[in-house]
């Protein structure tokens, strides 16, 4: 079977269109994120060409926003990459859930599914296929959702890059990127331990700011993760934590807070962008 025939069959499959319709509701939000990220990239001093290249290649909203301040001061590459890897940790968890549906595909297709997957697609996919076992219509459904997500992100992101180039730097539009990250951060504060960890990270990042090579990021990361885990160790019963997917823009159910504080449940926050 040729590639174009397979592509044609996927595009014509009813599940492909169904996925595009399922994704339509969240597309506007994804587009707004894309616009903010595009603007923030250019306003950090990145050239238009490099920003378009990064948007098309990296395709990860929070990670791009998080590394922008680091790139603009020429931080060492390993600090840039470590920061992105931490922000992308939720994808590693999602990948284990995707596995139950797509483990039977060849490696190259699994990598493609991984690259184009994301929180929003996962949430839509779970609504259609709550049973974690493969079915033939899942592949066209995935690509319908993934291509909608890709367009809803890349078109506004590149528009933001081009528009921002016409706006003076002194307006400070790049601050929208910091506010976007602030929003994500606030959405991850589920309990006392997470508040404590973020306080420790902020204090350490500022106190150690004078360190060379942006090592303050590393100090803050290590201190905050240690503080959070120590706080959980105070109540050490060593159970295996469950994962709880918390949809974007919503409060975690109050009855879950106790379990999260006890370390029985780890909340996994959905983000409304790639």
């Amino acid at each position, binding site marked *: 079977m040729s590639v174009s025939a397979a592509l044609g069959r996927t595009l014509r499959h009813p599940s492909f269109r169904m996925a595009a319709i399922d994704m339509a509701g969240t597309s506007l939000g994804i587009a*707004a*994120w894309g616009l*903010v990220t595009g603007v923030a990239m250019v306003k950090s001093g990145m050239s238009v060409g490099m920003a378009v290249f*990064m948007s098309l*290649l*990296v395709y990860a909203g*929070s*990670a*791009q926003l998080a590394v922008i*301040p680091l*790139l603009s001061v020429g931080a060492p*590459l390993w600090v*840039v*990459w470590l*920061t*992105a*890897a*931490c*922000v*992308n*940790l939720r994808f*590693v*968890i999602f*990948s*284990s859930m*995707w596995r139950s549906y*797509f483990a039977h595909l060849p490696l190259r297709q699994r*990598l493609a*599914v*991984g*690259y184009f*997957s994301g929180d929003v697609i996962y949430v839509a996919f779970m609504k259609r296929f709550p049973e974690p076992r493969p079915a033939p219509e899942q592949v066209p459904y995935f690509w319908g959702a993934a291509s909608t997500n890709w367009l809803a992100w890349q078109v506004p992101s590149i528009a933001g890059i081009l528009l921002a180039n016409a706006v003076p730097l002194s307006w*400070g539009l790049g*601050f*929208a990127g910091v*506010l976007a*990250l*602030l*929003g994500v*951060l*606030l959405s*991850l504060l*589920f309990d006392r*331990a*997470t508040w404590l*960890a973020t306080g420790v*990270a*902020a204090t350490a*990042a*500022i106190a150690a700011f004078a360190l060379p090579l942006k090592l303050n990021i590393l100090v*803050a990361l290590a201190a*905050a*993760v240690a503080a*959070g885990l120590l706080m*959980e160790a105070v109540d050490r019963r060593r159970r295996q934590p469950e*994962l709880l997917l918390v949809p974007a*823009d*919503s409060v975690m159910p109050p009855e879950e807070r106790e379990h999260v504080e006890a370390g029985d449940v*780890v909340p996994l926050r959905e983000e*409304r962008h790639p």
Partner: protein
Amino acid sequence: MSWSWIYPLLATVGLAVITVVSRSFFMIPERELPLPDWLKRGLKYAPLAALTAVIAPEILMVQGELIDTFMDARLPAVLFASVYYFWRRGILGTIVVGMAVYLPLHIGWGW
């Protein structure tokens, strides 16, 4: 000849590799691997620690020093944005409210 494009290029290629590897991580091996508990626990702290480490200096410092004035547009912007987030729980609204406070103070008053 300027080599300044090499750094962002290398950074971008590395970030793209991180995107592929993180998003397909448990789909890569042929045999199923269990999801380790330390990874689940790490999920709770590592992303928020990285985000805080990046944005705290962006919000609270100027030229490598802690802000020593209240006349900085970032402070009221972050305050109002955070209040909005905990009131409505919407990230896009948080960005809009923050910018609505930030832009007039920054462009108009020069804070």
